[in-house]
């Protein structure tokens, strides 16, 4: 199947006073219709900036300096601001971690939803837009949507607000939704509800979903494929089941070992020592070398390329640990 979104060698750099910060440095991946892809990484790994780059939301001093973002045959990075405006919120929508970033606190939900529809379709009447808003609210599991349309954001709880922002993202039936840590601020039971709604919506409407998160366990439960990012680069990607069963990159292994689970009770967690290097002066060679148990001289001199190790599986490492190799 032809992918909806195809990112090739994306480079988004920030030109700061202290130097050039390569927040996204050569990221390539694709998403097909109806597919859920998880983008996993720690803070500062560039996962959110990747999402912002697709949406055309990178502000100065940040700039996309190379690569292309191919969305249904069009290169988004070459579009003008006006052209991008037509796509943003219409064909590609974004859901943020904090729903109050999406919602205007002084406007009724109704006003905000109708505005989002009319902004991309001048011919639709207010009444029709209202009906579509109501139906979409019902779709994301908000009960009595007619009354709730008249409410203000502060009258909703955190989980309900996140549902409203998901509904707003769904309004124009986008082809792609980018969700940036959408459940991180929610309680476990509410997180379960939101994830289950999103899974259902993507299956039913064939919407592609890019799920950006730091939580590998959430991705394991929802995504089809996963990309693991470290210091602005994808270090491993493949099917979720394959990566969970057999993580090849030492960073992915460390990340999985760090997640507490029932089977490891009483044993110390397998921690990754040290911390993410400063993005302003990354070491020559592999960015993970100073935290890696397998690093050797080659790692500190040459930057490893991402290589295909199996069908649909790519890893950026010279020394895939013995036993993990396919």
């Amino acid at each position, binding site marked *: 199947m032809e992918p909806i979104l195809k990112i090739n060698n994306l480079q988004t750099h920030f030109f700061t006073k202290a130097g050039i910060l390569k927040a996204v440095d050569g990221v390539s991946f694709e998403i097909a219709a109806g597919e859920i892809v998880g983008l996993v990484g720690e803070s500062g790994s560039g996962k959110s900036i990747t999402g912002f780059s697709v949406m055309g939301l990178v502000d100065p001093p940040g700039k996309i300096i190379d690569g292309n973002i191919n969305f249904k045959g069009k290169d988004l990075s070459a579009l003008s601001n006006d052209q991008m405006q037509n796509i943003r919120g219409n064909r590609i929508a974004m859901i943020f971690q904090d729903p109050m970033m999406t919602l205007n606190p002084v406007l009724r939900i109704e006003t905000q939803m109708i505005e989002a529809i009319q902004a991309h379709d001048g011919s639709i009447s207010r009444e029709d837009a209202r009906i579509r808003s109501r139906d979409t609210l019902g779709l994301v599991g908000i009960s009595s949507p007619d009354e709730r349309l008249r409410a203000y954001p502060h009258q909703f709880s955190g989980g309900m607000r996140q549902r409203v922002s998901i509904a707003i993202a769904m309004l124009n039936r986008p082809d792609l939704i980018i969700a940036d840590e959408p459940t991180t601020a929610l309680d476990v039971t509410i*997180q*379960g509800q939101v994830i289950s709604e999103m899974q259902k919506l993507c299956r039913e409407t064939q919407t592609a979903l890019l799920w950006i998160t*730091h939580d590998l366990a959430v991705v394991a*439960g929802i995504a089809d494929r996963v990309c693991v990012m470290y210091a602005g680069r994808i270090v491993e990607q493949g099917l979720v089941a394959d990566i969970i069963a057999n993580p090849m990159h030492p960073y992915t292994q460390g990340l999985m070992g760090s997640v*507490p689970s029932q089977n490891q009770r009483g044993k110390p967690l397998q921690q990754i020592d040290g911390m993410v290097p400063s993005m302003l002066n990354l070491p020559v060679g592999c960015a993970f070398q100073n935290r890696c148990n397998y690093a050797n001289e080659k790692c500190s001199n040459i930057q490893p390329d991402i290589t295909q190790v199996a069908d649909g599986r790519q890893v950026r490492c010279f020394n895939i640990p013995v036993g993990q190799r396919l």
Partner: protein
Amino acid sequence: MKPILKVQNLSKDFIKSLDLVAKGLNRIGQNYKEEVVHAVDDVNFSIFKGEIVGVVGESGCGKSTLGRMVAGILSPSTGSVEFDSSQANNKEIPSALRTQMIFQDPFSSLNPRKRVVDIITEAPIYHKLIPPSEKRAFATEMLQRVGLDPDTLERYPHQFSGGQRQRVGIARALAVSPEFLVCDESIAALDVSIQAQIINLFVDLKDKFDLTYLFISHDIGVIEHISDRVIVMYLGRIVETAPIETFVKQPNHPYTQALLTGVPRLEVGKRQYEPISGEIPSPLSPPTGCHFHPRCNFATARCKAEKPALRKIAPAHFSACHLNDEA
């Protein structure tokens, strides 16, 4: 064996008293009432020496208020928190210092205008546990205990990363030789790989200094990993307490069961989420009877009318559910 910490009938109410307008309106016949939140409602439990007791629950369930009362930062409305001094490791330490707290946000819990050496030694010098002349040597030792380089003594908090700051917070707590640590979401603000480092540090310190923990977290995976016993709270009340194996394998209360099925797990892989419906109700007007009945699949008329008591259903396993009576 006697517990080292005993919490009896502990409650905390937060009251929003009437403002001037409402008072005036009440005089002319209106009926405005004070708003009361029972943040913690008649809680009883004990903790034995060397145990790590986890407290789980969703936001607004009162777990942080409970932790603050145990640590002595908040005074309870009714009830008591008793610490058994006869089991203390170091009996010369003043009793007020025996419980220390480690906070969630490593950014706001350290004074940004003080150097690390002063942050760590302020309390022990004030309480005359160490003479001021030994301050540097003492701080060096504390930093080494939590795995920080002693070269960082003269630095300010902003010069550290989140994980390192949390280590400074732990060093500060350890500086007064506490017996008991209350960790309130202490790792929630950290990245996954750093979280693992801090969890390992907590376990190491427990073994080295014979500490006891009350570990508060909303992250059930972390609680499962670290705790010996778990307390589950819902809207200010304890709904279940169980040893960790029982909690994982045979949770009794429907709320505990719902919480556990909602946890994302690596080993489960891709799956269909079947979440419980509804949300945690407002603590200003909690449901009658069992607080959980509007969301519970097994609720009966009795659950709506009568508050279930926390009762023993197996050794060390307590649950507050009417369903246990019928079985």
